[in-house]
């Protein structure tokens, strides 16, 4: 195993929080269940509980194999098994990158440039992300930390501007339609948290207390989601649910004194976050392929991944964008469960007892 550069767990926390906030920011009513706006609050709590549940094996992994990812652990069983796991994870990260790109494309083609072909815009985004990914994890970690600071500053500003529009009458009664809509929405939010898999993948590349950072990430997710929903539904009420991107609608309507149109800020942090997330995912794809295949092809893996997601997005834009938004909740849940529960369970089970044998052999 080669010596990989490391980032601090707090830089990883920044990148993952940025990634999750982007998912929150790109929340769209497209394909979502119709529900009372107050039901979103318990749905967040439910999502956090589900995330914790999905993270059980991650904690087991951190405890039993500190500083190792699934590929390293699978290596205890056999190199071929390790290669299979790395390919599977690379494909998963590629799919998440594609989903992020699809969401960005939807935003760009509906809000920023409604009358323009998005192929060129996709290409430059992916090219920029490929360049950033090629700079390595240290650069990405630092970029993520700075971007999160900018994100937080801009978002607080928008929320502050929205504060005077808050009206508690905008909130509907909680659980008016029963608990089911909240549970469903909670499941949807939890299964959109690919950060669990990303976190597990990054374990060999971070230094510091990973458990603490993960706990902080979950707390930040809970707090930010509740805050966002409070301002969105407190300010816009049901109107928010008629908008394609409710949070963008908040930014358009918020104002302080003579200052208006904070959607520019939101658009900026949206694009920046998407750029960081796609770069990070491309880096992960490359890192996993490097681990099991030719290590010197780092930039080639990134370039091929970039070309692949651009091509899929450009040539199948309509169907893929639509797919990601309308993909059935259960399909998404199954895919998510495979990578957060099934795959770790298989790898951990397969490596059971093998680690001790391998360590013994190496000592001898």
């Amino acid at each position, binding site marked *: 195993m080669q010596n990989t550069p490391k980032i*601090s767990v707090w*830089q990883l926390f920044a990148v993952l929080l940025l990634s999750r906030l982007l998912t929150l920011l790109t929340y769209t009513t497209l394909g979502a269940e119709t529900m009372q706006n107050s039901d979103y609050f318990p749905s967040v709590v439910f999502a956090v509980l589900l995330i914790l549940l999905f993270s059980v094996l991650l904690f087991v992994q951190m405890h039993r194999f500190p500083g190792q990812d699934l590929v390293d652990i699978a290596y205890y069983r056999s190199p071929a098994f390790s290669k299979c796991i790395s390919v599977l994870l690379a494909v998963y990260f590629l799919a998440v990158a594609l989903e992020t790109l699809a969401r960005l494309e939807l935003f*760009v083609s509906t809000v*920023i*440039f409604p009358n323009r072909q998005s192929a*060129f*815009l996709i290409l*430059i*985004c992916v090219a*920029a992300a490929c*360049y*950033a990914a090629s*700079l*390595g994890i*240290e*650069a*990405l*970690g*630092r*970029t993520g*930390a*700075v*971007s999160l600071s900018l994100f937080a500053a801009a978002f607080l500003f928008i929320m502050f501007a929205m504060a005077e529009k808050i009206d508690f009458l905008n909130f509907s009664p909680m659980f008016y339609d029963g608990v089911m809509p909240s549970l469903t929405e909670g499941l949807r939010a939890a299964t959109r948290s690919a950060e669990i898999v990303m976190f597990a993948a990054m374990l060999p590349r971070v230094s510091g207390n990973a458990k603490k950072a993960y706990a902080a990430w979950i707390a930040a997710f809970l707090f930010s989601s509740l805050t966002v929903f409070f301002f969105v539904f407190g300010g816009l009420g049901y109107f928010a649910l008629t908008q394609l991107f409710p949070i963008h609608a908040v930014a358009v309507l918020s104002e302080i004194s003579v200052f*208006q*149109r904070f*959607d*520019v800020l939101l*658009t*900026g942090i949206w*694009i*920046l976050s998407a*750029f*960081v997330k796609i*770069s990070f995912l491309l880096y992960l794809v490359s890192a996993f392929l490097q681990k099991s295949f030719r290590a010197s092809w780092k930039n080639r893996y990134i370039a091929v991944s970039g070309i692949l997601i651009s091509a899929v997005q450009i040539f199948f834009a309509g169907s893929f964008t639509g797919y990601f938004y309308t993909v059935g909740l259960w399909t998404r849940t199954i895919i998510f469960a495979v990578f957060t529960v099934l795959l770790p369970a298989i790898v951990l089970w397969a490596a059971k007892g093998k680690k001790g044998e391998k360590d013994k052999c190496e000592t001898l």
Partner: protein
Amino acid sequence: MRKWLKSEIERVTERESTPKAPPAPIETDIEKNIIYFKEKLGASFDILYKQTFIGENKAFLIMDDGMCDNLLVTQQVVNPIMTAEKMPKDAPAQMAYIRDQISSGIDQKEIYNLDDAVTEVLSGVVVLLIDGASVGEAFGVQGFPKRSVEDAQTEVQERGAREAFVESFKDNVALIRRRVRSPVARFEIQEVGVTSKTRVCVCYFADRASAQTVTEVKDRLQKAELDVVLGAGYLRPFLESEVTSMFSSVGSTERPDIACAEMAEGRVVILVDGTPFALIVPYLFSENFQSLDDYNHRPYYSAFIRLLKFLAFAVSVFLPGLYVAVCTFHQEILPMALLYDTAIQESITPFPVMLEAIFIHFIYEIVREAGLRMPKSVGHAVSIVGALVIGDAAVSAGLIAAPMLIVVAMTAISSFVVSKIYYPVSILRFAFMVIGGLTGFYGIVLGFGVLLSNLCAVKTFGTPFTAPVAPMHIGALIRDLFVRLSWTRLGKRELKIQSLEK
């Protein structure tokens, strides 16, 4: 294609590599030594060979006429030797007697080979060779013409010292030494440049600079493959980060007080003979926004100036691009009154906004460059013509819109606020204008992302270029970045650059 380009570059830049011969020892036969000198130095008129006799032994004093102070040569070398009363007869004993008893100069040393002797002569040293002695003696009597210490030209300070580095690096060392009278200040000399043999002085505080950094600096300078070094800029690429960036990770200053401040923070300062600018490594991005006056003003005002500089940087890089993007794609974000005014002005110009912006910035850069390179009297005339042509005639003729002119003016003035990074900023400005014109706000944000990640990837001798922002060091951030603490707190502990490495 890449291979062909590489071979073409190598072909035109290929240097004849001659195997390095071992240094020629000083012969006891003085004639052979003189022949060696004349072979090496040719018929250069400025090299003087003064033949004399010390006792019964033939001797030569060799010097470079323009590089030595003739008065010192007479007082410290020629007169004492010629008037010595108890001169021994044996050549080696004569040499020892001259070295230990006769010469009144302090700067003198023994030389054991002729290559060193030639280099010393070319450095302004008088070399004495005596027939029968296999050792030479070098007397430091340099006295070449040089500029006196003057006020800084490129780093003007309101309340700082009125002294700047000069071309002579010994004077520069003295300027630093005068400010820091501590034994921890170290000044080590190296030679770079195969032909020029330029002297380079590596300066640092022994108790603060990391030994690893000092060694790496010396190592990189040693390995610098250069033939002639005529300025500090020649060495800069050898000290830069591995990641290519528009922003240099090697700082430079012409002020000895700044050099001292940098050394006090554990950095290494490199003085190059013949250049009034010192190089500084490791150098952080945030240092481009600092000046010595920040530490002479009250903290609140310094903090204000710092924020102003960050704002000016943002304006100078992004404003033209944002203006182009807004006018081309995102008109809806402008308030109605501003939108009308801008639209009216832009509608009468024949060019698209992006071309207009590029054109006028291009003209501005031409005027700036002309004003900079021309003699001062003509430079003013160029500025006036530029201002009249661009400012008045172009707008009156309807070629350029007035708001665009305002944007250019704001950008130009802002870029001078952060003058240390003027060059990368001016290039980035053009890039963002093109990006803004083609892809609007979307492209500008992506461009910003690329720029940010590029800056974050740069490491300068192990320290991230973007420290203390990323990786974040709260202590350093609130101490001396966006704000500056009072000296009552700042003076208690000096920040060391090594503390920002992780």
